[in-house]
């Protein structure tokens, strides 16, 4: 590697970035995120969704949890997506796509469901974050409960909004 000449524009470059460089760099970062994080996650999501679908588990969950999901104005099948996203968010998002195509989920359903999915956090991440933040066990347990409540609240809030507008 060559040494950068002192005082050359390149040596001072990191201080100030041009807009285009910045945007291009951001695009690369986004591509990296998509390629390295999102693309691989469909393998896990696809496996679980196919298992749930092919074993008929989705119908069972739909019947059992139907009344619960009814509170949010959602069909019972949406329970799979919601419960699944507490494990990993990709189940909720990717699993919704076939249900939308088959007409089980309408636009109204998606509008209510997406905030509920977005408010979830995977257990591993919760434990890691609580550990990094230096919280004790009691706070961790309470925070977990709060995350669950937050998802319910977000769903109820959007449900009310869809009813009004």
């Amino acid at each position: 590697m060559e040494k950068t000449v002192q005082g050359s524009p390149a040596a001072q470059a990191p201080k100030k970035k041009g807009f285009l460089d910045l945007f291009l760099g951001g695009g690369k970062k986004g591509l990296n995120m998509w390629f390295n994080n999102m693309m691989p996650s469909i393998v896990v999501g696809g496996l679980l969704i196919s298992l749930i679908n092919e074993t008929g588990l989705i119908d069972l969950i739909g019947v059992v949890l139907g009344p619960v999901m009814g509170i949010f104005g959602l069909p019972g099948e949406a329970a799979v997506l919601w419960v699944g996203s507490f494990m990993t968010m990709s189940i909720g998002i990717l699993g919704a796509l076939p249900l939308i195509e088959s007409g089980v989920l309408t636009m109204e359903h998606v509008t209510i469901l997406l905030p509920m999915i977005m408010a979830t956090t995977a257990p591993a991440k919760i434990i890691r974050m609580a550990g990094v933040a230096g919280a004790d066990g009691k706070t961790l347990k309470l925070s977990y409960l709060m995350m669950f409540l937050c998802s319910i609240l977000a769903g109820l809030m959007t449900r009310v909004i869809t009813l009004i507008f």
Partner: protein
Amino acid sequence: METVEKKEKVGISGYAWFLLALLFFSGAFRGAPAPLNLLDLSTYLGSFGTIVEGAAPGILGKGGSGLNNLFLTCFTIAPGVMFSVAFMEAVEYYGGLKAAGKLLTPLLRPLMGVPGESALVMICNLQSSDTSAAMIKSLYDSKTINAVQQGILLAFCLPGPALLGMMISYGVMLYPYLLYGSGIVIVTVLLSKFIVANLMRIILMGGGKNNKKPAAQEV
């Protein structure tokens, strides 16, 4: 670290970028007439064409299933992810996030019972999970917040961390099926985070006497 960040100045451009980001990702101008639609993400993303009549836009086709279909779906969101991340990079670089933190600072004590220094934790939480957790720890270690306030901030940060990042990556796949702009999702989740943080505040303050950690000064 917190004292350094507190003193950092936010210029007009920072506020302008913050406003721009708000409009851009909220979808407020989705489908608006000509000059205004420049303020909406979907204007830049455009749409895929259909290959044959009746097929879904882009390379998806119709009636696909399983991993194959997921692969193509995931493929089609790449432009949106790249563009959104690039835009957020610009917002962050030009001080948009710092401006948001500054606007939030005076509201924090009455709204959540935490000092204004916590604003950056909450703004950072929109973009990243672990960094915001680390910031809570450093605020606690420097005695800027006490154990109760640490719990309040954690309750805010834990549900849906990196909300913006998740929305512009995973959420993008469901954007076409939303009744309103994506802003509705961000607003409802943020509001819910505020509410549960306050619930945590009530719980922790109620059981304050049993708290093993010494709660510093005021709450």
